[in-house]
């Protein structure tokens, strides 16, 4: 594997995908990483110098919100300068969405790219400490891999800022930005109110940059190859590539790197036109396959259909599964994962879950559908975080996409012949305050 890597110069393969994941799908140790990307972290020598390149590259956050990365970097650097307080950088690999596996895969296969990005982000905002926050043992023991990677880097002498590893509790909201900062500061891993933004006052009161693990990996490559290289794939408005978790109707799941703007038709594989796909994960949107195959994987195109790229999750519902029943299971999980802090989320999500459970059964009350639509409207925009908004988005899209199926349930029928659950939903639920620590 290593020899194959050495055979291709970094520049020559730069525009080919995958950029982030090793083509071999084997974990990339330091020497392999150094052979592929160069064994030096391309530091710029002073805070702020990398930011113009990131702006020109048009890199956006790959954690789901797609916020422009240069603006976050600028905000943290400005706050650090004006408040004369040294910034902190947090690499967020706590991918809490059960259907997503892209950050865990990236950290498993290419930890050094993320760690390069963490060092570069730290330099860009003048931080003197960095934390990498992950779910340590979901499918792979990412925690151990990262420890080994850090040892290799110290031996290679490429680390400037000390990196600490920290572990997120296995909760849906663990990866939410303020929850990350709250937990690392010794509090429960649940969201806090903005203001203050972490970029103003985050970890330990310092201006804090929280950046998704994949975003950091892209940052490391922009620092090496420059913004023009980065824009060679993707669309003009949304340049670059993105990692996706693709779950097909046959139950297979894979993580793949695709250019933004890629036709969903090519991403989905074999589908039936009367089926449905879920774009953007459990805070995402159900779309009829017939509509989805007309679209491309970028926010501009998806927005028109009420969807977003999110964290790059694309799931095809098997034709023999009931979309309402699947959504009901997911919403029940999402409701149980609410931190219960905000009145509308606390009251709305359990009721929405109950109404969906009713709709998933035979001959639901007519009122259940109207209730669901009203509650979805009522919770949107009224939480400290976007958990109620995302849940409402999923529910509303299910009501539209599965409208015909809902009518069928009204007549006591269901087209789902396979009772086996399809979408991955963890069983866990927070029962005490300790479940958030």
């Amino acid at each position, binding site marked *: 594997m290593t020899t194959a890597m050495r055979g291709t110069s970094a520049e020559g393969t730069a525009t080919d995908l995958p950029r982030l994941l090793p083509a071999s799908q084997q974990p990339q140790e330091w020497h392999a990483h150094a052979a592929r990307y160069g064994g030096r972290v391309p530091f710029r020598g002073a805070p702020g110098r990398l930011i113009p390149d990131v702006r020109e590259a048009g890199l956006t956050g790959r954690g789901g919100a797609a916020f422009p990365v240069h603006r976050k970097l600028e905000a943290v650097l400005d706050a650090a300068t004006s408040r004369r307080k040294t910034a902190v950088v947090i690499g967020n690999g706590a991918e809490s969405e059960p259907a997503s596996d892209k950050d865990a895969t990236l950290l498993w296969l290419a930890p050094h790219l993320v760690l390069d990005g963490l060092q570069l982000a730290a330099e860009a905002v003048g931080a003197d400490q960095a934390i990498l926050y992950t779910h340590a043992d979901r499918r792979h023991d990412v925690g151990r891999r990262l420890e080994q990677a850090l040892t290799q880097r110290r031996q290679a002498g490429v680390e400037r800022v000390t990196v600490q590893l920290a572990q997120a509790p296995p909760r849906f909201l663990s990866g939410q930005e303020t929850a990350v900062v709250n937990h690392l500061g010794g509090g429960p891993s649940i969201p806090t109110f903005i203001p203050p933004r972490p970029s103003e006052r985050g970890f330990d009161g310092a201006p804090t940059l929280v950046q998704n693990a994949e975003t950091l990996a892209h940052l490391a490559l922009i620092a090496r190859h420059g913004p023009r290289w980065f824009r060679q794939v993707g669309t003009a408005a949304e340049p670059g590539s993105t990692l996706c978790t693709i779950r097909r109707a046959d139950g297979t799941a894979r993580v793949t790197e695709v250019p933004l703007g890629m036709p969903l038709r090519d991403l989905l594989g074999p589908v039936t036109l009367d089926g449905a796909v879920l774009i953007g994960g459990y805070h995402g949107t159900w779309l009829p396959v017939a509509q989805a195959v007309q679209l491309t994987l970028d926010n501009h195109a998806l927005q028109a259909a009420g969807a977003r790229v999110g964290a790059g999750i694309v799931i095809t519902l098997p034709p023999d599964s009931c979309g309402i029943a699947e959504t009901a299971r997911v919403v029940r999980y999402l*409701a149980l994962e609410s*931190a219960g802090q905000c009145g509308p989320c606390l*009251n709305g999500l359990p009721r929405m879950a109950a109404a969906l459970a009713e709709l998933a059964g035979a001959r639901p009350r007519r009122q259940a559908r109207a209730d669901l639509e009203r509650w979805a409207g009522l919770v949107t925009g009224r939480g400290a975080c976007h958990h109620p908004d995302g849940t409402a988005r999923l529910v509303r899209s299910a009501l539209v996409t599965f409208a015909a199926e809902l009518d069928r*349930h009204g007549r006591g*029928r269901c087209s789902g012949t396979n009772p086996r659950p399809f979408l991955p939903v963890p069983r866990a639920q*927070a029962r*005490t305050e300790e479940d958030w620590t």
Partner: protein
Amino acid sequence: MLANVRGIDSTTALWYASRATGVVALLLLTAVLLLGILVTRQGRLPGLPRFAVTGLHRNLSLLAVAFVAVHVLTAVTDGYVNIPLTAAVVPLASPYEPLALGLGAVSLDITIAVIATSLLRRHLSRRVWRAVHLLAYASWPVAWLHSITASSDMRHGWMFALAIGTALAVVAAVIWRLAAAARDVPRAERVGLLMSAVHGAHGRERTTRR
């Protein structure tokens, strides 16, 4: 002279004024505490909108401060016994009834802190404000003990009944509030509890024909 018969003349007027304002201040502080205890999600006064409870709580507290101020100033100004001004805020600074007046000073200090943080409430975090505000629960019993110990009137007759009445009212209100707090569900359990409640309502999984 009528006033002389009752013992009020120019030499004792201040003394009587101090005692009278003291009693009124105790009643006002009791009302303020009761209203404060009532400010919960469930707590309402019949016929009053919610904002009126907090409004009354706030305005009566300012009125109580005015009465306490007159109460203290008249006691200090009165020449019959020697109470230095410092004794109003420094415990045991008075040669006359050091213990009883010391209790008054402690209560006044706490009250000042509670009122000052409330006036500055907008600029404080809720945690800080609330922590100081909870001290009101300590301030009231100290004020009550001050009344009982400093004034022999308060230990007899209808004044004594009044003092006991305020104490009973406060104890009852505190018990009500504690019971309400005990019904509070810890944050982590709220969603699960509501979940089983709403699913029980009409959510029995009905079977679908597949």
